[in-house]
């Protein structure tokens, strides 16, 4: 078994090489303590077992970014047997900068000249033999996207694994050499198979990781390194760091000069031509808008349509569970049945989004592979910079819900690529404010009830106010709690455009969907159990229980009386018999509803005939007179039973722990116009937003007239004014975050603290905003639409004001380092703990 580390600069096609070698046998985890993905794969070649780990893509191998530190820690701690360095053949010079640093480490390196096809197309001729000679290591040509060069690479690994030997590679640092040699003698190392020379170069570069490692055996290494550095700088009046970089670039230049011939040096590449339009001053924004709009249409809109086809599968699953669970005895529903249905509903609500996510993740993977992401950042950076965000915050915010609605889960998941830690966190924490798709039914209900005349305007307000709120929140956070977090300079490569590979896109899309299922759905189900308990207990009081029993008995007796003379009376002369017929009837109706085809209907009929031929007569009585009477009475019995069940449910909610919580909050929430019923709806919507509508709907459902819609019932019976509705809408716009989103926040920030912050900050904000508007509206007798306009204007104004405020710049020129409260300091702490 040999261990291989795959290293390379960003955009060198490292992941295509990884996929080419390891196929679909991949495992993704995080490096300890940080949110950097660690991808590993296992495969074998000619009885050689190989474990390969994909290091984060880095331009250099120093210590100035989290990724570089993580990559270096891996090499130091895990000691891979071979390093494979993937190099973009069409951009050799800059890539060699990293190659030199890897060659110095002391571990055998294989250089993979990837994207040879691109290089050839651009007329770049590379003399691989010559490079191999100069680098003193095997150099293989590949085209990862076409899977070319796989066998040669595997063969090289195999050959090298038989004789793991490092051929020392020395870059000539000229006037620095005496200083390197001097340090090399001072360093004491114990059975390190790392190159002494590399360690001494690293100490001269003041590499924290290496210095702290060496200080165990050479306690004063830091001072010695400092002295050598100062001696060099005083003698030659040159900066060591700059000198190292210049030497490496000069050496890369020498290799390129000797081994590379550019035949089409001055002709335009495809990327040059494409960027003339894509980044054109006038066309860039319209094209960006079109791309975002297309993504939105394809994923959210089309994906939503696909759920029409996948929903029956989930519904069938629900029916299957109901079939297994014990049946209701008229109005007595067993607790286990209630629980089962609740759990299936909770799971289905989340699983329903999978088609949307799959399309979305595939599209994001395509955008990433094509190379459009950094260009998006380039186009919009100026706007987002003002709010403490990064150009690359565009996509997460759009996915979170620009236009009519999105979902924060994929939005937050796509923040991974943002290089600036502070902007990334600010994006993660502001995406949940965007317009969530599952909130839309709630708005529709309220707007239908209170704003039927101004529905379009109100919907416009709701869907556009969210982006302003997200920006304000981002600005607030970056200038307060996130002020001291690590930021990264905006030095961003604009890589050449590439065609994405089908395999790469599919693997990534399924990977992310799987992550969603594994992490999010499982935890939401756990929370659903808690919520069920909160809604069920302590349950009905004994008087109420008696009351409902009497009610249902009265209905049954009434039914019984009507049936006395019926010729089928013997089939329905007891409560149990009636109950089982009623279950049979209801079940038939719900199953029949799922099929629209004639054959499907016949199938359902056959199944029910097989189950109970006598009962089936009452469902399709045809010309049988007595059976028709039963059919008619069954229908009314079914609706009467549902009414009682609904009443029981409301009574239960009212008495439940959640109901009590809703009541206990009333003193505060009444300032915003929320009574306990609304509180309960908001509380239950925490599990999944859909349930807010269900709860509110069921509380206000009118029991007298069955044909009245929930909207009308609410407008007439609730006693709310449009102002109440506005307060509710404002609260809903700002909150409540759903559990799924919170879990993703936890995954992406790797911290429960931020998750809790993401829960309670919006709630506070929401209640404050709702109270302010409701109070202002009441005292000034504003109409609903006036109050909403006021809120909208206030938010837009606030956005403009905070946008004009200069953001606190980390002073790069003066060299003031930010206090690193960032992920890295946490990582360092965890490393220290491990060492202890």
């Amino acid at each position, binding site marked *: 078994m040999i261990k291989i580390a795959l290293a390379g600069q960003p955009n060198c096609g490292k992941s295509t090489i990884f996929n080419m070698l390891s196929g679909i046998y991949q495992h993704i985890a995080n490096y300890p303590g940080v949110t950097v993905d660690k991808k590993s794969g296992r495969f074998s070649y000619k009885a050689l077992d190989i474990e390969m780990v994909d290091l984060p893509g880095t331009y250099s191998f120093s210590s100035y970014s989290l990724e570089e530190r993580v990559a270096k820690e891996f090499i130091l701690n895990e000691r891979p047997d071979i390093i494979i360095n993937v190099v973009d053949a069409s951009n050799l010079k800059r890539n060699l900068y990293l190659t030199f640093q890897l060659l110095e480490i002391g571990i055998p390196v294989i250089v993979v000249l990837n994207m040879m096809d691109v290089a050839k197309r651009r007329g770049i001729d590379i003399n691989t033999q010559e490079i191999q000679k100069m680098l003193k290591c095997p150099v293989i040509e590949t085209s990862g996207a076409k899977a070319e060069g796989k066998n040669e690479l595997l063969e090289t690994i195999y050959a090298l694994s038989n004789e793991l030997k490092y051929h020392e590679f020395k870059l000539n640092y000229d006037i620095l050499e005496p200083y390197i040699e001097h340090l090399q003698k001072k360093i004491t190392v114990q059975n390190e198979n790392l190159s002494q020379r590399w360690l001494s170069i690293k100490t001269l570069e003041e590499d924290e990781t290496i210095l702290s490692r060496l200080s165990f055996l050479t306690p004063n290494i830091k001072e010695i390194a400092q002295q050598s550095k100062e001696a060099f700088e005083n003698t030659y009046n040159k900066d060591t760091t700059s000198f190292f970089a*210049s030497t490496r*670039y000069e050496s890369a230049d020498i290799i390129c000069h000797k081994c590379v011939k550019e035949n089409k040096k001055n002709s335009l590449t495809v990327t040059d031509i494409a960027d003339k339009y894509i980044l054109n001053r006038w066309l860039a924004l319209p094209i960006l808008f079109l791309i975002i709009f297309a993504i939105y249409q394809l994923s959210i809109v089309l994906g939503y349509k696909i759920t029409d086809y996948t929903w029956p599968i989930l519904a069938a699953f629900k029916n299957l569970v109901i079939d297994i669970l014990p049946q209701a005895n008229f109005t007595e529903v067993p607790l286990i049945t209630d629980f089962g249905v609740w759990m299936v509903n909770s799971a289905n609500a989340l699983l329903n989004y999978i088609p949307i996510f799959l399309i979305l993740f595939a599209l994001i993977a395509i955008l990433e592979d094509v190379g459009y992401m950094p260009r998006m950042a*380039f186009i919009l*950076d100026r706007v987002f910079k003002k709010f403490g965000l990064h150009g690359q915050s565009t996509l997460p915010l759009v996915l979170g819900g620009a236009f009519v609605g999105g979902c924060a889960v994929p939005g937050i998941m796509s923040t991974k690529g943002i290089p600036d830690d502070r902007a990334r966190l600010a994006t993660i924490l502001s995406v949940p404010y965007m317009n969530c798709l599952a909130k839309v039914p709630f708005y529709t209900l309220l707007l239908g009830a209170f704003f039927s005349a101004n529905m379009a305007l109100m919907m416009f307000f709701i869907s556009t106010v969210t982006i302003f709120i997200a920006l304000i929140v981002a600005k607030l956070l970056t200038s307060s709690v996130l002020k001291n977090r690590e930021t990264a300079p905006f030095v961003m490569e604009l890589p050449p455009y590439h065609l994405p590979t089908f395999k790469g896109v599919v693997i990534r899309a399924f990977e992310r969907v799987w992550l969603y299922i594994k992490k999010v759905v499982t935890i939401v189900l756990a929370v659903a159990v808690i919520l069920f308990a909160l809604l069920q207990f302590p349950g009905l009081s004994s008087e109420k229980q008696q009351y409902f029993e009497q009610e249902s008995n009265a209905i049954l007796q009434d039914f019984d009386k009507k049936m006395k003379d019926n010729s089928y009376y013997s089939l329905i002369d007891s409560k149990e018999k009636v109950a089982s017929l009623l279950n049979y009837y209801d079940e038939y109706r719900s199953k029949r509803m799922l099929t629209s085809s004639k054959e499907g209907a016949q199938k359902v009929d056959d199944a029910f005939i097989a189950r109970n031929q006598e009962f089936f007569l009452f469902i399709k009585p045809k010309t049988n007179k007595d059976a028709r009477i039963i059919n008619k009475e069954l229908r009314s019995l079914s609706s009467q039973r549902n009414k009682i069940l609904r009443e029981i449910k409301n009574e239960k909610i009212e008495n439940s722990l959640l109901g009590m919580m809703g009541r206990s909050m009333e003193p505060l929430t009444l300032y915003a116009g929320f009574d306990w019923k609304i509180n309960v709806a908001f509380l239950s919507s925490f599990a999944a937003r859909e349930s807010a509508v269900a709860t509110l709907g069921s509380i206000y459902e009118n029991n007298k007239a069955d044909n009245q819609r929930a909207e009308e019932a609410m407008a007439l019976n609730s006693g709310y004014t449009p102002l109440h509705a506005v307060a509710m809408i404002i609260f809903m716009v700002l909150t409540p975050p759903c559990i799924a989103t919170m879990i993703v926040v936890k995954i992406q920030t790797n911290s429960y603290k931020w998750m809790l912050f993401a829960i309670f900050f919006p709630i506070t904000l929401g209640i404050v905003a709702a109270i302010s508007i409701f109070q202002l509206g009441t005292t000034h007798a504003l109409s609903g639409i006036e109050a909403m306009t006021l809120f909208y204007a206030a938010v837009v104004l606030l956005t403009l004001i905070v946008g004009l405020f200069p953001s606190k710049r980390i002073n790069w020129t003066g060299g003031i380092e930010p206090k690193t409260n960032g992920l890295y300091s946490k990582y360092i702490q965890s490393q220290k703990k491990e060492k202890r």
Partner: protein
Amino acid sequence: MGLDDIQSGYIAKIVKINATGKLLHKLLDMGFVNGTHIEVIREAPLYDPMELKIHNYYISLRKSEAKLIEVAQL
């Protein structure tokens, strides 16, 4: 003259880098070493950041950072 003063389409040579710390390291890693030629390709649609060509690849910098790179126009 700062790099941010160079017009699109012109080439300049790096004279000195006034950045320190993390930014200096990042710039050095990306190949901003003294004597290197930089071509200014374009500005973003909203005038900031700017796109540059260096060592035959493309990179973008905010003007606030480009200002720290002293250049001589060629």
